[in-house]
């Protein structure tokens, strides 16, 4: 019944509901101070993100990778093996930094042993394929072959479950023996389909996946309570979901960079058809699991559309149209896509100015923020872009100067959130704190 009501709401009303739940999360705060700190932070973020003018001051966030661990001398290996240790480190980092949104561990302190059990090949993680001091990195390869687009387009789930997953993880190889459940529609024709499940290779994969699932439960048991605890202690967690640009969905882990870029010449029509096919998939990936209380932001890391990866014309043909459809699809359900434009987006600004007004946040790294403000001002909130090398190697004064200049340049009128340029794995504590302090002291409107 509640769902029916939800579906009848306009995008505007859905957005209002989501933000209302975000502003008042309906849990017991750890203290009255934590409650008022939470509300002030959430309101500040909302004002900037939805372009509702100037808040009390410039909000400040910190897109963190392994930094909460490394600041305590913990290697990425340690925080991907010892979940309780990781949770403690992230908890402490949030209290140390006092930023306006939560530093969450879920995309950094991943469960290493689960990947180990599944013999995952597409990823190298700390201590497995990369040193214990390095974060996880992807192993690029044509995990989906050039001639397999049809399989993906016809039946994405069948393809992912029975072709792709067996390829990217040794522990899931057995699933290549399974077939689409079409045989089960007229149920009496089902015995050959059911027989496949008794295959020893399938059984072995089921056991591996079960064991990996148990490992992830242990991980979740340490991580998820932390998220709730941090909210109760005053740190808003605006993300719960992620989505992808369809071109990256295909290019990142299916075709690989080389594969997808060659497809632009060899089979452009098929590539574009696949991008369009992915659009509803990556929208519903979020909207199907969301409920009206789900936090409003959807994290969207963007990769292969950056400056240098392709020309403006190629961006406008291959990357942007399907991404814009995803953005609009998420906005229609009351979400705000948070587009993390890694690398530089200088030549893309005029194109991405087609983003729905006040309904998307663009996080920039090497993009010229002044130009970004000129082009996107009144269209999208912009976030960023304190350089990682400055935070890791620079001095406090240099960080402060950079942040002050940035605030002078792009903060007037609101619609700006001070943040690091890209995901922080290592940084000097005092530099991170300096960034936060500048927002609090110098960033007052």
């Amino acid at each position: 019944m509640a769902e029916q009501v939800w579906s009848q709401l306009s995008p505007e009303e859905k957005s209002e509901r989501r933000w209302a739940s975000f502003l008042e999360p309906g849990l017991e705060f750890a203290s009255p101070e934590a409650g008022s700190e939470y509300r002030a932070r959430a309101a500040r973020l909302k004002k900037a993100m939805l372009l509702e003018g100037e808040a009390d001051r410039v909000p400040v966030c910190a897109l963190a990778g392994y930094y909460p661990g490394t600041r305590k001398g913990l290697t990425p290996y340690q925080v991907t093996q010892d979940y309780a240790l990781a949770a403690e480190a992230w908890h402490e980092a949030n209290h140390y930094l006092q930023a306006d949104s939560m530093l969450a561990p879920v995309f950094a302190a991943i469960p290493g042993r689960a990947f180990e059990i599944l013999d995952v090949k597409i990823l190298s993680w700390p201590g497995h394929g990369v040193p214990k001091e390095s974060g996880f990195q992807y192993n690029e390869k044509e995990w989906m072959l050039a001639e397999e687009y049809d399989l993906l387009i016809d039946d994405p789930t069948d393809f992912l479950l029975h072709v792709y997953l067996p390829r990217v993880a040794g522990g899931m190889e057995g699933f290549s023996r399974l077939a689409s459940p079409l045989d089960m529609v007229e149920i009496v024709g089902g015995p050959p389909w059911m027989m496949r499940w008794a295959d020893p290779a399938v059984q072995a994969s089921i056991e591996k996946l079960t064991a990996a699932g148990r490992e992830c439960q242990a991980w979740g048991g340490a991580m998820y309570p932390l998220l709730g605890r941090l909210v109760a202690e005053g740190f808003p967690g605006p993300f719960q979901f992620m989505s992808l640009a369809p071109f990256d969905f295909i290019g990142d882990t299916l075709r690989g960079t080389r594969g997808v870029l060659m497809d632009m010449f060899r089979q452009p029509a098929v590539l574009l058809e696949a991008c369009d096919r992915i659009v509803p998939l990556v929208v519903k990936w979020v909207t199907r699991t969301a409920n009206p209380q789900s936090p409003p932001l959807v994290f969207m890391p963007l990769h292969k559309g950056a400056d240098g990866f392709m020309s403006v014309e190629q961006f406008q043909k291959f990357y942007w149209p399907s991404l814009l459809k995803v953005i609009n699809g998420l906005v229609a359900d009351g979400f705000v896509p948070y587009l993390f434009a890694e690398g530089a987006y200088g030549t893309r600004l005029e194109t991405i100015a087609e983003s729905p007004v006040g309904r998307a946040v663009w996080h920039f790294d090497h993009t010229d923020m002044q130009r970004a403000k000129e082009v996107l001002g009144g269209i999208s909130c912009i976030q960023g872009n304190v350089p990682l090398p400055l935070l890791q190697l620079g001095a406090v004064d240099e960080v402060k100067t950079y942040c002050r200049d940035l605030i002078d340049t792009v903060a007037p009128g609101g619609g700006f959130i001070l943040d690091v340029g890209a995901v922080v794995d290592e940084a000097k504590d005092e530099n991170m704190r300096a960034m936060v302090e500048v927002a609090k002291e110098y960033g007052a409107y």
Partner: protein
Amino acid sequence: MHELVQAMADMKEEEALKMVEELLAQGEDPKKILDLSSEAMQVVGERYQEGTYFLPELIMSGEMLRKTGEILKPLLASQTDETKKLGTVVLGTVRGDIHDIGKDIVGFMLEVNGFEVIDLGIDQPEAAFVEAVKNNTPQVLALSGFLSVAFDSMKSTIEEVEKAGLRTGELKIIIGGGQMDDTVRKYTGADAYGDDAMAAVAFAKEAVGVK
């Protein structure tokens, strides 16, 4: 412009490969065909430098060159590459980092600009760079890295090269990739950092005294 050069430079892969086969069938010297392919790569490099071509064209060109090479290689076995090189560059992604695309573009652009490139690959320990510098006496050592973990690997690699007594006035060191900037350059002790492949080419040319 020869039609093969044109086809390759315009990303017409099928057409280009068909032409290679036809030229061979007509009795054309395989070495000549290979030279035409190199000429096409030069054109691609120029268009990249001008800003009309980007990563997709470089990847596609590399692929066409690889395929042409596969066809021609058996026929060229006895011939050696006599082209005079401008100089030698040792290139690789440093320890702890497995990113290769940036490094590969730099390698491609250096090659089309006349350099001998010794590409060590990804996740290379300090010792591998020291060994390669010792064995090849390059004018340029180019270290690639995408992640911040690479800052320390670059620093220690340069230190090891120095300790081995290989950082003479003849060797210039450049870093590039992802987050590399002047702050990182100072930290690592490199001579320069590059924002893109063109910066690496300009740096290498200066190192060998070519304009």
